[in-house]
């Protein structure tokens, strides 16, 4: 009956592959209206005048809303973003007006009839622009915004947040360093590019109930924000989320839901749908943050890292959203999984006139890992040490502390050393890191380690409720969104294992409805299995206790004498003496008709423990319950004549505590590696001189294709996390994190020039090579 660790196909797989699965945009109803956004063509401009006269007369138009009609500002940490631009626009693609009409194309046609007069303001299009003396300010009124006390914006600058790490003594660190390496790195803004573009519908009923249907990773945040900003009582906000076609963090931000609510309110509560086109998904909805980084690292001649000075300049875009928290997460984990006693880090999130950024799979860790792991390779090179030996000498272990001085144990850090050793074997490091193969091409291998913690709210919580059908099968209700990660299948496994029951007898409610499902913080940070899995185990325990108590009065024994398996409650000392669960879970009825007990309803909850706020002057604090660690390696064949390369193999070895679903975990990691190769090799926005995004369609924004995938090798190490369900750690994001530096490390060796800028297209490699060596070819 063991289902933990087995490869269980996703519960919803058949619906998805047969096209029966329904996503938010698939739901329509008669009389439903449609909203469209007029967006800004400018990156930074004052709005002189908006004239909607003509547009209001256009066929099918029901309402037009502009920024001055909704004088509110939103944002998860700093509330600085108007739903529709007020006074000025801050990025290309920013919503300026919203039109509600009978059909989508009527709404769009009317948008084009709105006349907006703009007056250009100097733009901030890079970290350097943002930081120069007397810069153009993206938010001159920053001081007037409300914010939480965990972020530290700097008034009259473009700094949205600064997180400081001050660990050990830098003076000692540099004194003990015999070699020092210093470099700069760049990671461009890009997009989540989820297959499903964002969509939300809103309807306001006469009794005041607001119903939102949305493709969201954070339905309970939507509920809270509708309450906070529009004063709708919480119990009257019902947020429903069907299956979501990919989230990657991009759908944890709340945007279209509030606009759909505004649209519905403008037409007397009628149902209104607001659906992004791909272009809007790229430039209007929030995107993947960019980074400029500077790293200086010192080590002894024997290869012990003594000091690290790290500056991160996150290119956060026009509004702070999660960017400010991402920059904090980067600081708290700035060294990667290495023991460094002396650390100085300033991590800044900058306002710029780009599309605003939000969480992206890896939440700061993919961005920080690129500069750190490149630096580690540069150090090894300078020390003339094998890059893996150098890493093995410095990897973090139980007993060490993180940059934020969180104490590490075997349970919360796992075993990076073993991960790296396995990755070394799987990539066949012994063949040599660089060899010449046929046609004068060069086969190179590169490695990277990584770690990641969740940077959760310190009071993030989850709940689970289980009820029974009259045949003894189980229904599980929880607030996790199925975004393609397969958590709900894993939760069913956790439940099946505890009840020693067939998976087919577990029914998980796939959609989320905030009206009925117990709240889950949000479906982010690779933490749903950990949080909800624990809640599910507690709900199971609660139900089993109730069943044993009831069974004991029928079987005339104590509750402790009874256990549950295979749809029965049985006497441990004599399993033949048993009762079917179906005869217990809705109350037990004696032969004479008397009944006892009642419906069994299992309840379980979970809340994060021992997480702390972060000290603003030193960065001390505990950001997450554990770190999932791993090592990754890639093998590529580089053609020095054309600067092109072929991806041959990508390896991940991850310590995930306990494998719950082998196929599910492997699939998550492979998908992560593929996504990592995407932004490592080609993804990234290009902006023209006017600050306009040029790659807003898949015609120009290139992604990895099926035929370009290398061979993927995934292995797991199991060092249990003692408070995880069956010892498991999160693994949703981790395959993505170390791939870009592993590739850059390999290619830097082949090209013989440090490649510190992503994406690694043949053209950018050529440019770097040319710039470094002045080779005019």
């Amino acid at each position: 009956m063991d289902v933990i660790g087995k490869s269980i196909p996703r519960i919803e797989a058949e619906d998805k592959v047969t096209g029966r699965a329904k996503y938010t945009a698939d739901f329509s109803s008669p009389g439903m209206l449609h909203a469209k956004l007029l967006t800004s063509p400018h990156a930074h401009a004052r709005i002189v005048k908006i004239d909607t006269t003509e547009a209001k007369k256009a066929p099918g138009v029901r309402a037009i809303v502009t920024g001055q009609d909704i004088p509110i500002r939103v944002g998860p940490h700093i509330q600085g973003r108007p739903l529709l631009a007020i006074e000025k626009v801050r990025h290309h693609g920013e919503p300026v007006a919203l039109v509600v009409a009978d059909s989508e194309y009527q709404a769009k046609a009317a948008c084009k009839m709105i006349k907006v007069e703009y007056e250009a303001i100097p733009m901030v299009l890079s970290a350097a622009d943002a930081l120069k003396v007397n810069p153009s300010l993206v938010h001159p009124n920053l001081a007037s915004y409300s914010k939480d006390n965990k972020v530290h914006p700097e008034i009259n600058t473009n700094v949205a947040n600064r997180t400081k790490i001050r660990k050990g003594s830098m003076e000692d660190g540099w004194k003990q360093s015999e070699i020092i390496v210093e470099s700069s790195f760049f990671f461009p803004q890009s997009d989540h590019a989820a297959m499903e573009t964002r969509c939300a519908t809103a309807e306001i009923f006469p009794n005041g109930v607001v119903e939102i249907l949305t493709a969201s990773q954070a339905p309970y945040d939507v509920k809270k924000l509708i309450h906070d900003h529009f004063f709708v009582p919480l119990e009257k906000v019902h947020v429903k989320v069907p299956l979501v076609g990919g989230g990657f963090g991009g759908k944890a931000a709340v945007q279209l839901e509030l606009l759909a609510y505004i649209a519905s309110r403008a037409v007397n509560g009628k149902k209104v749908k607001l659906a992004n086109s791909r272009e809007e998904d790229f430039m209007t909805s929030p995107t993947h943050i960019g980074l400029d980084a500077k790293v200086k690292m010192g080590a002894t001649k024997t290869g012990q890292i003594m000091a690290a000075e790290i500056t991160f300049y996150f290119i956060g875009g026009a509004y702070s959203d999660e960017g400010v928290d991402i920059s904090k997460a980067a600081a708290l984990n700035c060294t990667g999984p290495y023991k460094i006693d002396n650390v100085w880090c300033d991590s800044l999130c900058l306002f710029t006139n780009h599309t605003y950024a939000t969480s992206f799979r890896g939440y700061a860790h993919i961005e920080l890992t690129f500069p750190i792991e490149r630096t580690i390779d540069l150090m090894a090179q300078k020390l003339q040490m094998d890059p893996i030996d150098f890493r093995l000498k410095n990897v973090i272990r139980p007993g060490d502390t993180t940059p934020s001085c969180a104490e590490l144990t075997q349970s919360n850090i796992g075993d990076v050393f073993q991960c790296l050793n396995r990755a070394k074997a799987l990539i066949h490091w012994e063949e040599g890191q660089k060899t010449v193969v046929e046609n004068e091409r060069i086969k190179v291998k590169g490695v990277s380690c990584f770690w990641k913690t969740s940077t959760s709210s310190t009071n993030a919580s989850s709940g689970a409720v289980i009820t029974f059908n009259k045949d003894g099968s189980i229904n599980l209700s929880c607030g996790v969104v199925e975004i393609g990660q397969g958590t709900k299948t894993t939760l069913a496994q956790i439940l099946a294992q505890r009840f020693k029951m067939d998976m087919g007898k577990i029914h998980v409610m796939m959609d989320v409805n905030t009206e009925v499902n117990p709240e889950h913080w949000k479906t982010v940070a690779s933490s749903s299995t950990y949080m909800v899995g624990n809640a599910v185990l507690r709900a199971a325990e609660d139900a089993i206790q109730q069943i044993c108590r009831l069974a004991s009065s029928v079987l005339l024994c104590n509750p402790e004498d009874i256990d549950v398996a295979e749809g029965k409650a049985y006497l441990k000392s004599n399993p033949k003496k048993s009762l079917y669960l179906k005869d217990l879970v809705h109350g037990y009825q004696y032969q004479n008709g008397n009944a006892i007990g009642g419906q069994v309803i299992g309840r379980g909850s979970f809340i994060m423990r021992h997480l702390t706020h972060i000290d603003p002057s030193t960065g001390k604090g505990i950001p997450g319950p554990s770190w999932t660690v791993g090592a990754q390696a890639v093998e590529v064949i580089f053609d020095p004549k054309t600067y092109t390369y072929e991806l041959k193999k990508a390896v991940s070895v991850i310590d995930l505590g306990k494998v719950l679903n082998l196929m599910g975990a492997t699939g998550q990691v492979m998908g992560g590696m593929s996504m990592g190769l995407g932004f490592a090799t080609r993804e990234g926005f290009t902006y023209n001189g006017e600050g306009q995004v040029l790659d807003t369609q898949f015609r120009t924004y290139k992604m990895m294709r099926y035929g370009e995938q290398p061979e993927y090798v995934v292995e797991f190490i199991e060092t249990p996390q003692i408070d995880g369900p069956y010892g498991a750690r999160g693994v949703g994001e981790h395959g993505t994190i170390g791939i870009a530096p592993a590739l850059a490390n390999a290619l830097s060796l082949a090209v013989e020039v440090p490649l510190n800028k992503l994406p690694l297209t043949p053209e950018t490699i050529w440019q770097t090579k040319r710039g470094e060596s002045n080779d005019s070819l």
Partner: protein
Amino acid sequence: MGTVLSYRLASLEETIAQLSREDCQIMAGGTDLMVQHKSPMGAPARFDKPVMFIDHLKELKQIDQVNQDLHIGACCTYTEILEHPLIPNIFKVAIKQIAAPAIRNRGTLGGNICNASPAGDTLPLLYIFNAQIRLRSSKGERVVGIQDFILGPRRVDRLREEILTEIILPEMLADRIVFEKVANRRADAIAKISFAGSMRLEGGRVGEARFAFGAVGPTIVRSLDIEQKLKGEAFPLDPKVVDGVVAYFDRIITPIDDHRSTAAYRKTVALRLLRHFLETM
């Protein structure tokens, strides 16, 4: 709103007759036109002229050999060309790199020519094959060389009542033909640079050499002068000869910077492809 007058006539003759009466936007596969005329979501594409559909016309879908020439109907899709036994293999190499199967099922050779994109994937090969374009109208027909037909980006020498009916591909004898496309991805990507080259040897000397570059200027770049000068040179070519040819193209290639690539990269890669072609056989 959103109405588009369109024709889908039963025969080529009727189509030509209608074109003589009315200025129409001719549409074959529509893979470029529908993107260029993209409209608000949910609405049909916008055209300021009536649309004349020709993708169904059987007369434009033949592939025949006449004497030594191959006649390819203008509305043959890339997929049909790919699957046809008479088509020279090098064209199949190029076509396999165009877009993705869905686009190849719709897009046509005639469309690729009339769209006249500097990055058109079939164009460099059509140039080195000295392809001829047959145009018909109610007044008659004419045949022009591809290099005279394409005037600039999106500009061709087609009168408004004319329709491109077929592409004539003369036989080309060569010991080596290559087609190279450089893009950000191996498929479904527009070329940063493309290159086609052919060479025929006669007793250790160059009998005939031809080469053409795509996406490095407003139209495909080819030089009959330099090709003529190479005739009779000993092969393998003397390094000085190679340098001379490369230097010549260095002068006449004038690429631009855009979001796909930079002028410097385009020129460098184009010249390296040329040098590689000249130095290896």
